[in-house]
């Protein structure tokens, strides 16, 4: 799961991470930790969406109008979508405060706007209400949020990495939403004693003295961040040879995944992995390692076969690579 999160930070286009697992396996904790790891990004001052001054195409309308936008470094947003959120807060609506006190119509950006260029985290994604899922699907597909309400019409960019977590026993995820996640991982509790003791011990240390704990692990975090930044820099130069493309295509054909999203994700993830590990080209080892999380939720499946889809990927992998 850690690797999947890091890779989606290296290349946001992989398209998010879905973490499914039992209760108490630290899914939410891992996602929240990501926020601290991410290097800051450059954003236009005063822009509610945190536009990137260097990417002209993806600017919101007000930013595009500015000729020489000022910018500053801001932390990458990791936005929580809490359960029970109402629609208006997700997509944005009129600013109630200003409407009431001054009688003005002003748009107040919602969570989607805040998550632009960052991460949107949905805990218990399988419990999300259907009409919110519809909304998210639409925005995630178009990268743009359109709001029509109270006679105002606003469109603004909303490109974010979707991160979901949940417990499959509490309900399944809609296939359309499932497809939006680039990587899917299963989280299990470690079942060796030393690891488990260490988990409890660290948690305890944090609770008793948060400041000391953070200071202690700060170095590790910095190291990881440097690795992340280096991987991002290397990403454009990481080559994907024809052979790797063919491998990916063969794999997906053997597994019978729907559409081309599987191949695309697989290649992107493999490239991110190569960059993360400092390799110049994508080789089979990368593909092999990243194929299960990239493909296992895309199999055209008998809905009953959920438990074994990982095994199916593994089997095809063995066939393809063993030969």
């Amino acid at each position: 799961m850690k690797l999947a999160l890091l890779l989606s930070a290296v290349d946001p286009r992989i398209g998010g991470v879905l973490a499914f697992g039992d209760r108490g396996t630290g899914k939410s904790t891992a996602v929240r930790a990501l926020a601290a790891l991410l290097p800051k990004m450059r954003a236009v001052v005063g822009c509610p969406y945190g536009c990137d001054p260097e990417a002209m195409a993806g600017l919101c309308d007000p930013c595009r109008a500015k000729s020489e936008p000022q910018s500053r470094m801001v932390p990458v947003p990791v936005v929580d979508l809490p359960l029970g959120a109402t629609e208006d807060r997700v997509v944005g609506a009129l600013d109630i405060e200003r409407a009431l006190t001054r009688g003005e119509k002003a748009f107040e950006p919602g969570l989607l706007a805040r998550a632009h260029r960052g991460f949107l985290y949905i805990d218990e994604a399988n419990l999300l209400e259907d009409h919110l899922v519809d909304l998210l699907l639409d925005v995630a597909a178009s990268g743009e949020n359109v709001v029509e309400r109270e006679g105002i019409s606003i469109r603004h960019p909303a490109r974010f990495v979707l991160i979901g977590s949940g417990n499959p026993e509490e309900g399944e995820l809609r296939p359309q939403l499932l497809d939006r996640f680039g990587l899917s991982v299963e989280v299990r509790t470690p079942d060796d004693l030393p690891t488990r003791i260490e988990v409890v011990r660290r948690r305890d240390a944090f609770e008793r003295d948060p400041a000391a704990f953070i200071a202690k692990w700060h170095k590790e975090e910095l190291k990881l961040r440097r690795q992340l930044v280096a991987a991002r820099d290397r990403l454009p130069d990481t080559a994907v040879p024809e052979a790797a493309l063919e491998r990916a295509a063969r794999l997906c054909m053997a597994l019978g995944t729907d559409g081309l999203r599987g191949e695309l994700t697989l290649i992107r993830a493999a490239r991110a992995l190569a960059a993360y590990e400092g390799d110049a080209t994508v080789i089979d080892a990368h593909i092999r390692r990243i194929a299960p999380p990239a493909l296992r939720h895309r199999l055209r499946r008998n809905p009953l076969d959920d438990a074994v889809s990982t095994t199916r990927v593994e089997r095809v992998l063995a066939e393809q690579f063993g030969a």
Partner: protein
Amino acid sequence: MSEAGGAATRPPELDPWEDAALVARLLALDPTGVGGVVLRGFAGPVRDRWLALLRRLIAEDTPFRRCPLNAPDGRLLGGLDLAATLRAGRPVAERGLLAEADGGIVILAMAERLSIGTAARLAMVLDRGEVVAERDGLTLRNPARVGMVALDEGAEPDERPPPALAERLAFHLDLTAIALSDTGGDPPDAAGVAAARTRLADVTMPDAVLEALCGTALALGIGSARAPLLAMRVARGIAALAVRDAVTEDDAARACRLVFSTRATRLPPPQQESEPQQAPDQPPDGPPEPQDAADKPAEAPDPPPTEESPETEEEIDPQQLQDLVLAAIQAALPADVLSRLQLANAVVARGAAQGKAGAQKASMRRGRPIGTRGGELRAGARISLIETLRSAAPWQPIRRAQRGPGGTAFIEVRREDFRLMRFKQRSETVSIFAVDASGSAALNRLAEAKGAVEMLLADCYVRRDKVAVVAFRGSTAEVLLPPTNSLVRAKRSLAGLPGGGGTPIAAGIDAALALADAVRRRGQTPIIVLLTDGRANVPRQAGAGRDQAQADAMAAARQVRTAGVTALMVDTSPRPQEQAKRLAAEMGAHYLPLPYSNAAGLSRAVRAVAET
């Protein structure tokens, strides 16, 4: 500190009320740390007495709020305060119930009927210690460090609070076993608890004890990392109550017993059970290992002298300690837990916690309003007046200005304000498969029947229906799978379905009907799909003949018709049976001989039945 002393040297038998009182003290001591307690038992004097005890243990000014079952999100998490907003002319946020209870205790009424959605919201609050809500144009962030008492009035073993919530509450107390005359005991010592609270932060946890805690959790098959964490906090609490600076093994054992015994999914491996018996000749601070409840307390009076010693001696063998703790838990595991565990193991090796998790999901969906959403007013939609007003309120100044003077409406509501009630799908169907797994059916085509059920399951998945499986063979019927929409579980329970034995059709129909009744009470629509060859040979009463068995089956079938439950009868015999047809007729069921239908046809048939 008479209380604390009482905790360390408890009376010779495991007194459930003593445990309950300790739990109350621990909860009062550190509500946020331990999360709370699931209190199983009907409303009654015992429960009232426990709650009163808890109330007296916490400080007078600490919030102690009761949360009704159907509290809407606005009330639970907070939202726009309509009345105040209109009065003040600016948005006024209303703090939710959870935020109001910050620092105190929230009582969740009828927790066994909480929806998973609500449970997830509560779990979020427990995890973060604050309420985060994005509602009604407001972003709310209020501290809510609460402990929760989930009142679980479930009558059936299946009716339990949602696992996501129960997981986060350290204690699972069963009050049903406590008689009113057993209650009482020590008077509440609020001052002692308050004093212990100041000490709590300084209680240290020896590494060996921590390792033993984690090892015990592992040995009992407890997968979640939360359980040992909770047990650790509980152990600290016990030590603080007993005025000790460090957690002793006795504290740890007690904490494990309180926290782990209801969470255990398997018995510790036998090698660890036998080891303690060889332990007596080990270090002097390890008293002879107790093997059952009667032995354990015999050792309990000893601890005071040894208590000081383990801290000064740096040698505590975690392994040995873990065995001690395990022994204490085994003594506390109720007998039916063991049999349940064995049963679960016998049927099929399941993943950790799964056996319980599914069972607890039974009461999650009901036909009741679950919130509102924006939308058009159309036939059939019901408007939520309050929510509509709430969404219209903020825009009144703008609208008044647009309209100009002369308007008469006090509040102008426009179409985009409409908020419609959302209900849980009223049409949600639960297909109850009553599968004949008897010898005659096994002979014929149990495998085919299983295949057909799997096909139907896939179909149910598409329609988002729930499924339940009842199997009957030998002399009884059992519910293999309570209503669930987890197909993985359904498939697993089918795969583990053994065949052979007599054909107790009456028992099978009775069980399916009982389940259908429970389903209907939850506002869902049951469908019974009976797969059998119709040749009943086991009557309700043991000893009666085959004819009686057939008559019983017919009688049971008539009850289905009387109850008005939609039914489908699939004849699994090699060629259509007259008996099966008659049975179907008595049930008022659609009759479908399997020889003529492949699995796809079967699936169509169920759909047709479901839609009538």
